[in-house]
């Protein structure tokens, strides 16, 4: 095992250096322009818009107060149209247990709950203070106060609640989960494909035989995977830094406007890195198996296309889990190794439980090891069957 890791490190070091110090790496760093565009398109296409917008905000208020807020809402709707304006539903303060229950259980049936009336409004829910819902409610309360003859500025504190597993927050956290999942998928697809070209290049260089004679094939594959993972993470670090700097310059509150994930931002980012590594290793090990089987770039394209398409389907399945992370479909996708990282990053966005992430990483690592063994087995079977072809002989005879 020690020798395997040592050999993998030697190969990874060379591959990483060769990749990162190449001119093409600069082009690679420009890559996110495309995936970010795709994130927008994908996220928009797969997001169940109606789920977020059909759930109302529960308003614990007297009938009179609710009417004022509702009137303000109607004015807002007159201005902006019905699609973008949050719906309101009154919760009778007399049945205070109903309001309390709505708060404590994560507002089943409500995207959030507004309490305290016009005088002392407080918003309970898994939405951020900068979310569209909170902003709209501030406008409504302000307008309602004006109607009531008060020009007092609106202060609307938002009390973050844990989403209910049975009725998860259909608002901000779902968006965060979906964004994280989409980003993970696109980065994986983009970066794992690089492995294929690496292995094909290696085979055309004839270096592969030198490597295979010196170190175990498993070490070659592991080294290549780790090198490309490290190169990808280097790229992501550059992109993240550039993105953060851009946000800082152009939209100082840009990150703050994103709804906070259930596990909080630091852990969510950490899980993002971990699950990217896992999905990359899983897909990368499959691509390595394909690269071992193929002998030309054309063959690689033919063979990898079904895997890429299957991956899109897997992503679509994983995205269904958003909104119902404990449902049967979500659990099934969690166990299926290729969709597991996507489901888990979405789960981190929606649910605060942590222990399950440890289990998931171990589970995914087991599959990485299995895929690597299979890929190296395919490699042994399909390459280096015999000496060079006659064409190669002719070529080598040219002095």
């Amino acid at each position, binding site marked *: 095992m020690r020798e395997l890791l*040592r*050999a993998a490190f*030697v*190969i990874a*070091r*060379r591959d990483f250096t*060769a990749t990162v110090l*190449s001119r093409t790496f600069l082009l690679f760093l420009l890559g996110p322009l495309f995936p970010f565009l795709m994130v927008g398109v994908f996220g928009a296409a797969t997001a169940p818009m109606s789920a977020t917008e059909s759930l109302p905000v529960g308003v614990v208020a007297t009938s009179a107060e609710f009417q004022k807020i509702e009137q303000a809402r109607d004015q807002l709707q007159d201005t902006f149209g019905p699609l973008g304006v949050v719906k309101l539903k009154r919760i009778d303060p007399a049945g205070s247990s109903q309001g309390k229950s709505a708060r404590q259980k994560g507002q089943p049936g409500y995207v959030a709950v507004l309490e305290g009336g016009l005088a002392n409004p407080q918003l309970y829910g898994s939405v951020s203070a900068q979310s569209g819902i909170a902003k709209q409610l501030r406008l409504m309360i302000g307008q309602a106060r004006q109607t009531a003859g008060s020009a007092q500025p609106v202060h609307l504190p938002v009390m973050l609640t844990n989403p209910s597993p049975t009725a998860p927050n259909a608002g901000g956290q779902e968006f965060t989960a979906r964004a994280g999942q989409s980003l993970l998928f696109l980065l994986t697809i983009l970066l794992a494909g690089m492995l294929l070209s690496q292995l094909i290049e290696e085979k055309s*260089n*004839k*270096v*592969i*035989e*030198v*490597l*295979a*004679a*010196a*170190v*175990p094939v498993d070490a070659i594959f592991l080294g290549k995977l780790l090198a490309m993972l490290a190169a990808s993470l280097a790229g992501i670090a550059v992109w993240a830094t550039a993105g953060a700097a851009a946000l800082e310059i152009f939209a100082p509150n840009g990150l703050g406007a994103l709804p906070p994930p259930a596990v909080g931002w630091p852990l969510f980012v950490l899980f993002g890195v971990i699950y990217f590594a896992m999905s990359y290793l899983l897909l990368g090990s499959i691509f390595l198996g394909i690269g071992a089987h193929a002998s030309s770039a054309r063959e690689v394209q033919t063979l990898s296309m079904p895997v890429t398409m299957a991956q899109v389907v897997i992503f679509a399945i994983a995205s269904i889990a958003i909104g119902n992370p404990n449902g049967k479909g979500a659990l099934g996708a969690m166990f299926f190794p290729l969709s597991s990282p996507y489901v888990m990053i979405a789960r981190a966005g929606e649910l605060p439980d942590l222990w399950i992430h440890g289990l998931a990483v171990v589970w995914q690592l087991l599959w990485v090891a299995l895929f690597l063994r299979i890929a190296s087995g395919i490699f*042994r079977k399909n390459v*280096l*069957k*015999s*000496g*060079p072809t006659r064409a*190669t*002989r*002719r070529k*080598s*005879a*040219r*002095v």
Partner: protein
Amino acid sequence: MLRQATPQSWTSGYAVEARNLVKDFAEKRAVDGVSLEVPAGSIFGLLGPNGAGKTTTLRMLLGIIEPSSGERCVLGRTRPIEAAHQIGYLPEERGLYPSMNAREGIAFMGALRGMHLSAARKKADQLLEENDLGDWARKPIRNLSKGMAQTVQLLGTLVHDPRLIILDEPFSGLDPFNQGKLERVIRGRAADGVTVIFSTHVIAHAERLCEQIAIIAAGKVAFNGQVDEARAKLRPIVRLRTRETDGAWRSCIPADATKEGGEWIFELPQSGPEPLLKALIDGGAGIETLAIERPGLHEAFVAIAGDAAAKAMDTPEEMTP
């Protein structure tokens, strides 16, 4: 079924032992029951025409591919990859990273074989200087001539001072100057006690360098032993020119003798040269010239592997201008 090396099952005096190695690919049997014994510290040649199974045999010995059946022991290990740090391998299809410079290319190959990278770099510098490539040490390999690139790969094969060097068709594509240089390298390493195995389809190289050879034809070992033993498979050839054309001496000329350009050519009889000489003198042949020639490895190869294999060996690589 592979076994761990034990004194009972493997002979410690051999650097490499193989027993009944078989390799089946889907379409054909590439190697069919090859057994080899390579004494430690010897130069061992694997002879055979293209497609005979030499490369597949070497790859099995190195553990790059697993045999379908049979077993092998390399430097005391039945899993050759475990001895990889003590082995240097130059494949027939040369492989280097074109964007790496010569120094890093050699050092990388040393690091693969267990060297610390900084030590491998130092050794690479030394080897490049010794081989007049010091000025090219930091140039990308893609900028090197083919001969230089081959030398760089050879140095990468030797950088970690292996105990066993395996070279697959090492002379292929080299000009005569570099062939001579490579022969000196092989002899030099062998003089230091290193075992060298190389495959070739050029008999002259094996004849010049090898103490022991194995002749492989159609995936089978047709001969395994010393070069002299291979030659001894054939009787020495007698070339005789006489002043007299007929006489009693003719009785000592074998019936299958041929006459070319006034010269009798026949195998030396089992009784040896003395009775032949006596019969010729006593019979009044009037010996003009008499030569008893030891057969070359080529003749031995023809006798051992067959004419077809010999013709395949003789077919030169297709050279293009």
